[in-house]
């Protein structure tokens, strides 16, 4: 028994949505089928599973790291060479705040980008079955299964929904 994928190609979003509904009705579990498009469609346009994500945690986590590092960088470097200038305190809080602000934001942005890539499940150098016409406006409905006996069921659903072409991959 090996993992198989089939890809049904559609030109109309309504047909792709019908295919997604059909797969649900045929007993295919959520997560075993997905829709591929070359452009963002409104959420739920294909009745697809709405993915949950934890992207908002990434910038907060990055900002905390950046802020901590910035306190270290700005205070330790000044204390390491404690030269009094004009009788002012060694630690110049307002000047430190500027550097701390920039470092906090920088780490926040970097963590967000890592978060976007991670939550998009990228990089994925073996992305599986695909068709280049998807970036020309076609819509792909991809079904993945371990059980060979389900191939015929999936094909039947895709054909019934009006798939213009069906591709197979192992």
């Amino acid at each position, binding site marked *: 028994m090996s993992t198989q994928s089939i890809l049904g190609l559609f030109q109309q979003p309504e047909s792709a949505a019908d295919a997604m509904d059909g797969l649900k009705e045929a007993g295919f579990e959520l997560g075993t089928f997905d829709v*591929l498009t070359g452009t963002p469609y409104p959420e739920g346009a*294909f009745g*697809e599973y*709405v993915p949950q994500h934890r992207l908002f945690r990434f910038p907060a986590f990055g900002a905390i790291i950046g802020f901590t590092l910035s306190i270290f960088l700005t205070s330790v470097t000044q204390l390491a*060479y404690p030269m009094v200038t004009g009788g002012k305190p060694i630690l110049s809080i307002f000047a430190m705040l500027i550097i701390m602000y920039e*470092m906090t*934001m920088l780490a926040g*942005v970097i963590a967000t980008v890592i*978060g976007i890539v991670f939550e998009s499940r990228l990089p994925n150098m073996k992305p599986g079955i695909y068709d280049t016409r998807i*970036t020309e406006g076609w819509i792909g409905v991809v079904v993945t299964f371990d059980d060979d006996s389900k191939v015929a069921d999936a094909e039947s659903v895709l054909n019934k929904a009006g798939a213009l072409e069906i591709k197979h991959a192992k």
Partner: protein
Amino acid sequence: MQQRRELDQVYTNRKLLNGQLDTPKWWAPTVTILGIVVVLGLIVIAVMINKGLGMTGLARPVYWGLFITTFVFWVGISHAGIMISAILRLTQAEWRRPVTRAAELLTVFSLLTALVFPLIHAGRPWRIAYWIMPYDLARGIYPNIRSPLNMDPVAISTYLTGSTLFLYIALLPDLGNLRDRTTGWKNAMYTVLALGWRGNPRQWKMQTVGGILLSALMLPIFVSVHSIVSWDFAVASAVEGWHSTIFAPYFVIGAVHSGVSAVVTMMALMRWLWKWDDFIRPEHFDALARLLIVVSTGWLGFTFLELIFALYGQDAPEIALREMQMFQWPWNGLFILFFLTAYAIPVPMWLFKRVRTNIALMFWTSILVNIGMWLERFLIIVPGLARRTPFVYTWEAYRPSAVEWTIFIWSFAWVTFLMLLFSKFFPLVPLFEQKESQVFTTDVMIGRAKVPAIIREAD
């Protein structure tokens, strides 16, 4: 938004990827000429570093001249990207779609160029490391974080890193598109760069949510960068004309004025050179001009406030400086030129719709703005140093040398060269944004009129 026509995705791909899949006839000669100018500029920079800053016109008391003016100018231009991309994305302005990539790109390349100027201005660029990097662990000597000259590289590096990552994340769907349209080594390159992009709902959701999140994070950085650049001057209490509390917002709004104008220039060039009439339409120039009217008028208000604050104190040296800036030759000539080009000519013209939708007029007026905004920075930086002050026995000694002018011209050639090089490998207009706009557009009948309408998802 009634000028759009229905476009299918195959046509959108073919037109917007024409720079990558084909090579326009003008591309190779233009890049070659720019490449020659870039190389010549680099040679001049190398010679100047070898011989020393004596080759420039910089002399006591004017130590900050054309290089620092051009540095501030390019940092200002860089503010286009986040202004257009982040603010318009957050406000869901529909007309942002063809503009965002070019604006983000302008940010990255102009920041890269801006960074060159303080480096070469230092005379011995390698010594810059001594003042920005925590370098000397053995002796315990570290950079002085109290100096804006240290804050500046930190802010600009943050902005450059953030903008580059922002640009890359927004490129991912288009890299997937290019992977699907290419073969050979190009396909291998795009396959790696696209990271395995497929376009499933999870990836699109991350594009949307991530784009908004990054926009929200980049906005405060965008404000901080030019604020900190302005403090290079504002904290110098000994120089009249520099020491002003209003400089941070004044510089930020000035940067937006020049940056958005530069985007207009670039949009016009993109429409003409790549023949993207279907994508970059007069309505986009109309919207940008309306934005510019608001921004430039706000900027004019700050310009007058800065002048009024300076004069209100009745401080004799400050009044003397303003008198020199506005009434003494050659500064008065430059001042008039600055006011005419940055505001008095373009903005009244933009009040008329037939100007706002005329691409040639928008192109030339946006260039005028940037001539004016460069002069503004020159008039802030140089007269304050050139003025005769007590115990200074040389004054008005600054005449930019041929070396400085050559490096100044080099910077424009360099930014254009990088843009054209980028355009050979990556699309200048985000394809997925264009296509999304097509998906979200429908015609509605109002009475007997068929009106294109944009559907927007509820949050």
